[in-house]
């Protein structure tokens, strides 16, 4: 049994439309698990159920062997960082961070010591007397993190904590979060819609869609072997087409093009997919894994060009680096390496 267990969680506000349907999730102690998905997929709702801010219609929530399903928010002892940071505007940084400790009726000296220590860890010591309004976005973010961590929570919950920061700060903050999380060994649930952010810091990722988890695995596995079309699309796969197994690793599409696909799969019918980055544009036809197409649209991406290429299989998107870009109307051949095609 895992440290955190969500079992058969259902949530519906009207009894007919389910926001979460039979959701199961297990998190091991010390792990940083991300809930990844598009907006409306139920990831924030799941986090709020974990926090106790929403009660599920059915199912149970267990932490460390203790059933917390009906324990109110303020007795759960979790730390939560909100997307808006939710710092108390009428309190100084020190008082914001001390708030959780005061609720636990600790004596003044202990509070002072603990707050002092966490402010040091989050590099905020010199700002203790400031009000949230006097601080920058990144600093407020750290205050929110310090406030959640100082109570030594059983679980740290992060609700898109980096989405209000600029791109550069976002990258340094996520490293910071990972560093602190590892240092304190605290089990963490992180909600995000940004796959790069999520892959970079997570031990495991749960990709969510329509109130359910589509795939729950390590970032590496999800990146390489998405298990459903939705996951594949969400993490950057494109160019989906139906294939039929001939034998072993040999497949055919409906037009008879032959493909060798290394991916292990026992099904006779499957959907093949490949990332735009992994397709090579070649001047000549080769027997296997290649189809002919005509350049339809070209867009410049900075380090490469993206082509939309008309083929028998429909439109295929390709990212290609070349000194001399192809022009609209050029005939090209697309080579899909056997180790880059996956089946979903």
């Amino acid at each position, binding site marked *: 049994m895992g440290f955190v267990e969500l079992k058969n969680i259902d949530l519906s506000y009207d009894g007919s439309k389910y926001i979460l349907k039979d959701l199961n999730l297990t998190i091991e102690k010390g792990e940083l698990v991300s809930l990844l998905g598009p907006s409306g997929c139920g990831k924030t709702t799941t986090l709020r159920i974990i926090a106790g*801010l929403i009660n599920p219609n059915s199912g149970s929530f267990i932490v460390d062997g203790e059933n917390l399903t009906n324990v*109110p928010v303020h007795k759960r002892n979790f730390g939560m960082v909100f997307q*808006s940071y939710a710092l108390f505007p009428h309190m100084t940084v020190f008082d914001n961070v001390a708030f959780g400790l005061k609720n636990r009726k600790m004596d003044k000296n202990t509070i002072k010591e603990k707050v002092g220590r966490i402010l040091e860890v989050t590099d905020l010591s010199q700002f203790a007397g*400031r009000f949230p309004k006097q601080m920058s976005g990144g600093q407020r973010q750290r205050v929110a993190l310090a406030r959640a961590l100082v109570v030594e929570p059983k679980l740290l919950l992060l609700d898109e904590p980096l989405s209000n920061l600029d791109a550069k700060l976002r990258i340094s903050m996520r490293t910071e979060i990972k560093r602190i999380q590892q240092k304190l060994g605290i089990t963490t649930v992180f909600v995000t819609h940004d796959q790069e952010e999520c892959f970079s810091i997570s031990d495991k990722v749960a990709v969510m869609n329509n109130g359910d988890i589509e795939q729950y695995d390590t970032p590496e596995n999800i990146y390489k072997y998405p298990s459903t079309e939705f996951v594949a699309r969400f993490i950057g796969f494109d160019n989906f087409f139906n294939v039929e197994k001939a034998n072993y690793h040999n497949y055919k599409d409906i037009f008879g093009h032959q493909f060798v696909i290394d991916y292990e799969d026992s099904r006779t019918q499957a959907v093949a997919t490949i990332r735009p980055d992994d397709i090579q544009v070649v001047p000549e036809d080769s027997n296997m894994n290649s189809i002919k197409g005509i350049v339809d649209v070209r867009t410049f991406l900075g380090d490469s060009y993206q082509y939309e290429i008309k083929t028998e299989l429909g439109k295929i998107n390709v990212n290609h680096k070349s000194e001399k870009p192809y022009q609209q109307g050029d005939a090209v051949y697309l080579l899909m390496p056997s180790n880059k095609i996956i089946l979903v």
Partner: protein
Amino acid sequence: MKLKRNTMLLLLPGTVLLILFLFLPLLSILFPTFFNEAFTIGKYVEFFKDSYNLGILWRTFKISMIVTIICVILGVPTAYFMSLTSKRTRSLLLAVTLFPLLTNSVIRSFAWITILGKNGVLNSFLLSLNIIKEPVGLLYSEFAIIIGTVYLFLPILITTVLGVLDNIDGDLIEAAQTLGANYFKSFTKVILPLCIPGILVGSMLVFTGTLTAYTTPQMLGGNKNMMLATMLYQEASALGNWTNAGVIALIMIVVTLLVMQIFNIIANQFDKRGEDENA
């Protein structure tokens, strides 16, 4: 802030109206209070020497204070409750809250007369339950004025505080709860401090409103329980002494401005939260 001249023109109609129909008449009333052949503040000295006048001034101040406190005690929890309800319940509650404002204050005072009078609803009720043996004189007392005025001004306080509560980020309450604060604590430690500026603004409206209220004290207070506004009316209308009425008017204006200033200072103290200093 720099305003364009065209924008300033928008103020013109209002300004002209105020100068012609408020400031000039006010000056014409106040002017005589300072002149008796030469400049003098004798009228004012006279006013403050008279213990009867001081009694009325004190009663006005006291009733305004009590009404404000009662309105805060009744209004803040109500507003908080309303802020937590669903949109539908809330608009219903808001309609109920604002309903008294739709009726004329004379009619509302009459309602209280039928309730509080010797043969009124309340007395009959208490008599029928044998709680009292004889009807009690609830009407024409400070108590009646207070009840009537609270009834009059409570909606204003509720709506003001509700407006402030609506602007408090809901995440703050949830954040407080995740940090171990129960409902009561998140109210007292987070919500209440954040809506104090709003409570102060509401209180200011109630206080100055009560201080200058005329209809309710006139109808529910009777002649024994005069307040500044009713005394002013008596001086001007019944006794025809416009100079004395002017004296009272200025005193009311000064007291009102003073009180507003005090409330503003307190509100600013609470609203600071470090905005004045730069990060």
